């Protein structure tokens, strides 16, 4: 029986027609394009796009570091741009092929991690804050509100070292990216104290638990919180007063790519207002494309969760790449926290 299936399969494979169109291989996070984005691009440019998805920066990085992965375009987070560049993985962006670059939000046209946009093109961005049930009294407004004993077993934090340590550091008034051992020790103490109150360290799973009412409050990314709020109007979101973490997912062209021109055309295509608007209408994520934003309805543009006002954003701090010693210290502390 197995043999029969095998041969049937082989003939099936052989029967596939050869596609003579040019190919572009794009590797992206899941849920970052709309249903029609890729097919429309394929149709307009007469090419075929291989669209793969990954769920963590490290997975993407491991492929990129081989230097021979076969991918043309990837979407690393901003804190990985510098490491990737130093490892010689990125091809410089040719601005002459990116006519729509002006569509970006002003603050993304010259970001701290890539001031001239020589290597990366900001695509989507996000932040982490506190999502909570409106019944909570008093309303949470700061990270310290997640340390309240009354919330025991009804709160979660993200299962992400930088995010949890970041929240603790912010609560203490330090920088998100601190590598100083005294500051990190205090952050560790905070996290240990909080662990006893936590139900779990959850990422996107917290969304379902919030919607079903199992937990009352959580540290969660703004985009995921928005999804939870869409499903359960009893939920609300706040950016903590002490400050919060910001990240951006950016598009890069890999140096190994042999289709640089086409890769740039894809990036330019993503920057188009109509395309960008169609994408975020489906994904409900925060785009860096201002022209696309202007095409969206008022209710979306005013969403305090996805597009907070300027004063709020000022409290945020971007993730940065860290030196090896600092990374190691933080990693050990995170291991300690989790094994406690």
């Amino acid at each position, binding site marked *: 029986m197995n043999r029969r299936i095998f041969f049937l399969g082989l003939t099936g494979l052989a029967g596939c027609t050869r596609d003579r169109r040019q190919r572009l291989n794009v590797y992206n996070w899941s849920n970052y394009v709309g249903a029609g984005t890729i097919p429309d691009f394929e149709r307009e440019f007469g090419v075929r796009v291989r669209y793969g998805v990954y769920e*963590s920066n*490290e*997975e993407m*990085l491991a492929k990129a*570091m081989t230097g021979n992965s076969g991918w043309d375009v990837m979407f690393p987070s901003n804190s990985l741009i*510098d*490491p*990737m560049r*130093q*490892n010689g993985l990125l091809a410089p962006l040719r601005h002459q092929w990116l006519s729509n670059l002006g569509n970006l939000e002003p603050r993304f046209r010259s970001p701290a991690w890539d001031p001239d946009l020589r290597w990366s093109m900001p695509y989507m961005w996000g932040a982490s804050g506190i999502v909570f049930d409106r019944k909570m009294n008093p309303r949470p407004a700061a990270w310290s509100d997640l340390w309240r004993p009354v919330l025991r*077993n009804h709160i*979660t934090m993200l*299962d*992400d*070292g*930088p995010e949890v340590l970041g929240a603790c550091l912010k609560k203490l008034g330090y920088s998100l990216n601190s590598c100083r051992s005294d500051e990190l020790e205090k952050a560790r103490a905070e996290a240990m104290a909080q*662990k006893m109150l*936590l*139900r*779990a*360290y*959850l990422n996107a*799973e917290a969304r*379902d*638990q919030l919607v*079903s*009412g*199992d937990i009352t409050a959580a540290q969660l990314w703004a985009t995921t919180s928005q999804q939870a709020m869409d499903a359960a109007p009893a939920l609300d979101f706040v950016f903590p007063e002490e400050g919060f973490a910001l990240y951006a997912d950016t598009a890069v062209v890999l140096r190994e790519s042999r289709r640089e021109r086409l890769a740039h055309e894809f990036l330019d295509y993503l920057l188009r207002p109509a395309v960008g608007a169609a994408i975020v209408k489906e994904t409900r994520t925060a785009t860096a494309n201002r022209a696309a934003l202007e095409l969206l309805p008022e209710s979306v543009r005013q969403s305090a969760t996805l597009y907070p006002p300027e004063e709020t954003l000022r409290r945020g701090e971007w993730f940065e*790449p860290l030196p*090896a010693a600092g*990374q*190691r210290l933080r*990693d*050990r502390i*995170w*291991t*300690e926290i*989790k*094994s406690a």
Partner: protein
Amino acid sequence: MKLRFWFLLPARIWLTMLLAVPLGIICVYSLLTRGAYGGVSLPWTAENFTRLADPLYGAILLRSLWMAAAATALCLLMGFPLALFIARARKWRGLYLFLVILPFWTSFLVRTYAWMFLLRDTGLVNAALQAAGIIREPLTLLYNNGAVLLGLVYGYLPFMVLPLYSTLERQDPALLEAAADLGAKPLAALFRVVIPLAAPGIRAGSILVFIPCVGAFLTPDLLGGGKTVMIGNLVQNQFTTARDWPFGSSVSLALMTVVVALVVLFLRRDAEEAL
């Protein structure tokens, strides 16, 4: 015997190319330093091994070994009667075997999420218990060691059942008749005839469950709520978010040495090996 040489050759070649060489690479990595931006780089150093002396990591290893042993024991207790049932069934044995494996063709992640859904405070198990009046407030069934054990047992039960079935199927029913003729009650016959004869299957199943369980990382992560670190989580973390491949390599080498030593010791005591 010349035939034996040819029989072992494919396995030897495959494992040399695709196990020994890659593991050699890992050994090399463990002696290098973490690259400034990920990956590995010179200089050579032994510090990845000296770091292991930290009691934090020893505790993690012990915890993982204990969990794996508990999961193996539970799998054995749960799986043996099932394997017996299938082996004794007169018709539809294939179907029964297939039903054991069937759930495992859905993604492991998806099945784990299904369990999370069942065990939630607002989940079906709590709802059923409350409806039956056994409890009033929902129990926290998720995000603790019990949930992790459940997940491990659930995930590895077929690995115990299939080898057990494979040995039990061979047992001659005449042996049980003989035992009965000699005056043994069915339960006694079970413990003094069936189980000892199934020893190879028990050994095989235990190894196939224990070893992967030690290195499990997804189950403790999801069902344990990320609140405990097993050795599998530690290794996974080093190769991903921490991007410290040399340290991850040294931890895995330590793990592999300990587990293989345990297994060889466990089997040698019985003067017969599973392989």
